[in-house]
């Protein structure tokens, strides 16, 4: 019989057994026993954030950049409720995360005790699964199971709520063997018959396209490699969702750029005209499909996803294959080769694609007096891409410009809040990514409004000497909101002006950061160089054109081919059907 130890120690032991190196957290009454256990050990590093929401995003950033699960520790009540946004964000973007929350003692649960919140109730629908642990005897197994669930199948956040008396009470702990869950059994391998059918469809297609997503990143680096192989042997063009950028290299021949609402002309037209769409670890999100009844009218659709509920959710597909996209692609490549298929003659298709490419849909009106935000992102890419940086973003126009103009060559380098679209994600995510990759260049491409949503995290980077960079595309507007108001509400800019902005340079300096302001196009290169030369955290306030719009854009409710390419195509007011869509 192993010796008895406190619940708090059991938790720490279990986390060590699971290989956890970093925890992002914030203390409080209901987790004091755990904090005391952490104090007395050296194996796990605790990173003290300045707000629990930031702990969750930092854990997401860490997870996305390293492939390991992110771990969060917060107190009961407000600690747990503050974490809810990041938990939901992780659910929407399928990020493996385990959140430990303190809870009032078991006999107080339900009594409206101080700092009591119904954490399992509140997080039931924003987690993949959650637990309330009622005895120290079950704690060890629950922690191991929580990690198993968070990291396997379609990854996601798992909350483990631990009452304070359970942290103090003692029980023996033994590392469990492999977890054989009674009901949770994700399907990893795809049905080989379906895979064979998919290969035959691919071999027969005249206008195929590979539509890839975040599932490939989640499957691990090997999946990105096998995607490249699949694209090479089939000769099919590749597009990706926002979440999947980097799985296929932007310099690759088959790359069409991102698709969807702010995707390229060629990617969206190719989706519209394809005769076969192979969806690989993506989920036909509304930002990707545009108007559903006009989506890809000519295409047969194959959908590979680890989550069966993603199949036929919004778009009916001809061939659903449930399984890990990496494994399924590997089998597809094997079958393709075994059947000695050769690359079909897709030259007509590529000629067509090249015509669309010639539209140069990412071009934008140049300016010599103002810094165009797109130009700022390009300059940033020029100056940094050889260093293979990790880019995080906030949410808004800057996020889309980053997705369009920063070109990713490998997975796990692009960290953004896609599904939930959470402003305030980028800085904490950059902190998490930097902790997981101490030597990497990590840059948060930010907006002046979003950055203020977790600005307190400047202190976290200072405390742990993390040399993260923030590059603010400061347009003095909640630009994306303003853009929609311009398109939909005849430029009635209701509450979208960023008034009373702080002096970001001085603000950074107050937190011990270096601050740089870039005001004119001629300062852009030197300002970026100065940022890169500084061995420590830097905040760059880059003043950009104030009312630039992000194009191409598929207005909500429109189809892929109704893309707007430039300002002069912007209408003043949309009808109610369109106004009702997000």
């Amino acid at each position: 019989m192993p010796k008895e130890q406190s619940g708090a120690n059991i938790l720490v032991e279990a986390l060590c057994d699971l290989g956890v190196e970093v925890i992002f957290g914030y203390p409080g009454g209901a987790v004091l026993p755990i904090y005391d256990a952490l104090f007395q050990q050296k194996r796990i590093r605790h990173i003290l954030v300045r707000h629990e929401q930031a702990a969750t995003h930092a854990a997401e950033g860490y997870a996305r950049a390293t492939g390991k699960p992110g771990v969060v520790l917060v107190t009961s009540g407000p600690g747990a409720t503050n974490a809810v946004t990041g938990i939901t964000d992780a659910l929407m973007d399928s990020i493996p995360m385990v959140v430990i929350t303190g809870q009032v003692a078991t006999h107080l649960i339900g009594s409206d005790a101080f700092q009591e919140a119904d954490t399992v109730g509140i997080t039931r629908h924003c987690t993949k699964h959650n637990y309330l642990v009622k005895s120290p005897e079950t704690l060890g197994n629950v922690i191991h199971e929580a990690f198993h669930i968070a990291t396997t199948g379609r990854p996601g956040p798992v909350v483990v709520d631990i009452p304070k008396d359970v942290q103090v009470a003692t029980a023996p702990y033994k590392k469990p063997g492999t977890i054989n869950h009674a009901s949770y059994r994700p399907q990893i391998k795809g049905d080989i018959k379906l895979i064979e059918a998919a290969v035959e469809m691919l071999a027969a297609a005249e206008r195929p396209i590979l539509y890839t997503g975040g599932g490939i990143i989640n499957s691990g680096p090997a999946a990105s490699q096998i995607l490249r192989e699949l694209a090479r042997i089939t000769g099919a063009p590749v597009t990706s969702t926002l979440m999947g950028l980097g799985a296929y290299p932007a310099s690759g021949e088959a790359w069409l750029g991102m698709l969807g609402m702010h995707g390229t002309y060629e990617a969206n037209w190719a989706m519209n005209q394809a005769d076969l769409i192979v969806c690989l670890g993506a989920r036909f999100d509304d930002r990707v499909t545009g108007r559903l009844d006009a989506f890809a009218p000519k295409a047969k659709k194959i959908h590979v996803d680890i989550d069966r509920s993603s199949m036929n959710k919004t778009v009916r597909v001809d061939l659903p294959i449930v399984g890990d996209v990496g494994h399924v692609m590997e089998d597809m490549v094997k079958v393709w080769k075994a059947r000695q298929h050769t690359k079909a003659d897709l030259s007509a298709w590529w000629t067509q694609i090249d015509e669309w490419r010639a539209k140069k849909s990412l071009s934008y009106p140049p300016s010599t007096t103002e810094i165009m935000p797109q130009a700022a992102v390009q300059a940033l890419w020029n100056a940094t891409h050889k260093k293979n940086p990790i880019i995080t973003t906030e949410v808004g126009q800057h996020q889309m410009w980053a997705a369009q103009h920063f070109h990713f060559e490998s997975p796990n380098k692009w960290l953004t809040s896609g599904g939930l679209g959470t402003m305030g994600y980028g800085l904490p995510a950059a902190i998490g990514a930097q902790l997981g990759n101490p030597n990497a260049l990590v840059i948060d491409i930010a907006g002046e409004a979003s950055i203020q949503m977790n600005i307190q995290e400047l202190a976290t980077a200072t405390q742990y000497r993390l040399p993260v960079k923030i590059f603010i595309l400061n347009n003095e507007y909640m630009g994306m909101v303003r853009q929609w108001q311009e398109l939909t509400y005849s430029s009635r800019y209701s509450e979208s002006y960023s008034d009373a902005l702080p002096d970001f340079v001085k603000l950074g300096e107050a937190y011990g950061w270096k601050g740089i302001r870039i005001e004119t196009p001629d300062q852009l290169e030197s300002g970026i160089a100065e940022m890169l030369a500084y061995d420590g955290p830097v905040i760059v306030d880059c003043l950009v054109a104030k009312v630039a719009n992000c194009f191409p854009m598929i207005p909500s409710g429109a189809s892929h081919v109704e893309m707007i390419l430039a300002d002069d195509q912007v209408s003043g007011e949309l009808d109610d059907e369109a106004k009702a869509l997000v």
Partner: protein
Amino acid sequence: MHIKEGLKERHTLSVTVTNEPGVLARIAGMFTARGYNIESLTVADITEDDSISRITIVTAGTPAVIEQVVAQLDRMVPVHKVTDLTLLGDHVERELALVKVAGTGDHRIEALRLAEVFRANVVDTTISSFVFEVTGASTKIDRFVELMKEIGLVEVARTGIVAMARGKEAI
């Protein structure tokens, strides 16, 4: 602008789940969170060690919605198996109701006569009232309740539907 809705079908689902705290809230909450209907939901454990419960859910939606409901249930961690009994075809559905009827004289006699027709049992009686227990398809219970309204219906309690596929196999 008006909000459109598609044509709905009624499906009976049988769901086996690990009998753990919160599992019912998880399932019921998924229905509300995703805007699905629950017309009836029954739950009770079906194993000797109380480890597994069987939930019978009657839901309505377009075929695409029903397919999603099944998939969404299936991916939940404590869910063992989801069977769409309606899709499976032949199955039996039963419901039990307690129906309280008050009245005197001819009304009492008529109530008892109707109860006999519906094979309802008298499970409680006073000088001026009966409680009937009636089992059967929901439509049968509906009809019984409807008739009792004329006689002196006081209140009704219904269990909701339990269902099972015909034949010798388990789901």
